[in-house]
């Protein structure tokens, strides 16, 4: 999977390069709009991560030109402007998704995976991690032979963690995707922490293998064994 990252800020560009490479993506970094445009035209990528605030040619211009030329590659835009009009403008110019800076890296990974997955029908009826099993049809959760009693919110939360198992999940992702919280400034972190604590009590408390782990400062991860 090849990803083109167009980002002028060197530190952010390097972090993106390293982080994505660590996830086994083939990463090409362009530092200006012109360079990005050149790469996007010359080579084939699976996803383009495009910063909007670029020196020279702005991200929006690059995007609009690329789309005019018929480029179909999914584009994820990064923007420091989270005003609604800016997002709308980005999506109108042909972006497939957007992420507002400062973003959490796990969220970027999740969005990229979603873009790569796009078009494929995701007909999952059962989710599984180790001896934890979730039936999405009957909405039952079992661990080993034991049935776990979860509230609706806990069920949604666990399903989300299971879908993203072995991947870091930030509080923003949970706030946005599980709580469907539209505003970023709403203080939900405490609420999420409490729900995670309760879920962990039900899922992990009486079992030797812990599945839900907290990664300090980042978020949560569901996996067998400690986070590496």
């Amino acid at each position, binding site marked *: 999977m090849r990803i083109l990252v167009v980002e002028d800020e060197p530190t952010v560009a390097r972090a993106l390069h390293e982080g994505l490479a660590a996830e086994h993506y083939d990463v090409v970094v362009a530092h200006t709009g012109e360079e990005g445009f050149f790469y996007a035209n010359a080579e084939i990528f699976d996803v383009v991560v495009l910063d909007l605030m670029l020196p020279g040619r702005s991200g929006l211009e690059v995007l609009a030109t690329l789309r005019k030329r018929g480029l179909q590659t999914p584009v994820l835009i990064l923007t420091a402007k989270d005003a609604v009009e800016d997002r709308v403008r980005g999506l109108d110019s042909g972006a497939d998704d957007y992420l507002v800076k400062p973003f959490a890296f796990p969220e970027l990974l999740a969005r990229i995976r979603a873009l790569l997955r796009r078009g494929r029908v995701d007909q999952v009826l059962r989710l599984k991690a180790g001896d934890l099993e979730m039936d999405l049809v009957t909405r039952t959760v079992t661990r080993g032979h034991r049935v776990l009693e979860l509230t609706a919110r806990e069920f949604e939360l666990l399903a989300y963690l299971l879908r993203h198992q072995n991947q870091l999940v930030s509080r923003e992702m949970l706030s946005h995707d599980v709580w469907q919280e539209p505003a970023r400034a709403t*203080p939900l*972190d405490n609420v999420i922490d409490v729900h995670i604590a309760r879920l962990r009590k039900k899922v992990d408390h009486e079992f030797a293998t812990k599945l839900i782990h907290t990664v*300090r*400062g*980042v978020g949560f991860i569901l996996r067998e064994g400690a986070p590496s």
Partner: protein
Amino acid sequence: MRHHWPGHSVRVRLTLWYTAALTVVLVLYAGGVLVFLQHRLATELDRQLHDDFEVAEQMVERTPEGGVRWRTAPHHEGRESGASTEQRQWVEVWSPEGHLLYRSPALGNTALGPVPVWSQAAQGSASRTVPGDHQLRLLQGAYTVGGLPVVIRVARSEAPLRHALRTFLLVLVLGLPLAVALAGVGGYALARRVLAPVGWMADQARRITVERLGERLPVANPADELGQLAAVFNDTLARLERSFAQMRRFTADASHELRTPLTAIRSVGEVGLRTPRDAQTYREIIGTMLEEVDRLRHLVEGLLTLSRADAGSIQLTPEPVDLVALAREVAHHLGVLAEEKHQSLAVEATQPVSVWVDRLVLRQALINVVDNAIKYSADKATIRVVVSEHQQGATLAVIDTGPGIAPQHRAHVFDRFYRVDTARARELGGTGGTGLGLSIARWAVEIHGGRIELESEEGQGSTFCMVLPASTSPPSSGRAMLDHARRG
């Protein structure tokens, strides 16, 4: 452009208006005087003609030949008196048939107008101005001289009258511009004198800068217009000073709040790099740094929300919202936080209460206030969200049984970064700990034309009342509401 120009402009305009008005008044007055004078002179002339006519009646006598002649005074030796009046007066005597019987020598061969018509003369004496070069005023009437009916005509020249009027007009034409010019100069000087304090005030005002907002304009006489202006200006200055002070405090607070996590990130990082450590310790260090970054992010987002609110760039999308449902949703959302502290969080309402608001904005406000109540109330406390409707609108009251807020803090709890107990807030940390939650709540309520109030008694708990105005239709625009909120 000279900076004094506006002052001059008013002065010049005042003078111009003043002079124009004066000119109109003077012209009307002069015209009136002229008409009056002409009337008076004409009346005087007519009176003299009547005298002349009477003299002529006395002096005219019949000659034996059947003609008419000027009589010589019977009581006088010679014809001195009669002759002199005969010399001076313009008299004609006509027969009813239109034959000239007598013409005074002063007239020579000049006729006093056309031949008189008997029927007109018989109707009585009347004076009229005879058209022609001589400018005569003429009086004629019927009379009988020794049994002979005649028409006596007397006349006087209008030249003196016209001359007097002409002289008067000349005086006016020459004098009026002079008077107007003098009045203009006087008016200009007066205007300058009256407006002088304005320039002086402007100078004073120019001296007042951002650094010296404490200064005020001296108010000479609070009762007059300029005094009122100075008072209004001083009032504005006072408000400006307050808002500048507020802004300065806010900037200081904000930089402090931003520096704290930055300092933490820096020192944790620096200390971490000092000696080699194992992977787990590094993970902890980076985790701590990321937590501080998160705090910083929440802070920046809160500040951004408020600065957009200040700039009025947040577009509201009002819709009918059931406050009871909204309160239930928020309670459901934050319920777990209360449960963790074994608090009871309940919504009390008797009926649905609908108001026209931006749902997300109001929801944020309610979340902030309820979150605040949960955070600052002790374990096992009771928190009630009471929704009620009244004449003026609707009220969302968040009532807790917490420690209450001391009187000296009450006025400030809605200020940005204001914390009743700094240490406790730090310890609570997290998202509501930015010190901006209640500021955002206040903005959210006020932008809807409502108000947020705090009632509190130490040891008895606090009540945050969000009062929203009743509106059955959508407000005209977000901008209007914003203006309303700012005025309030």
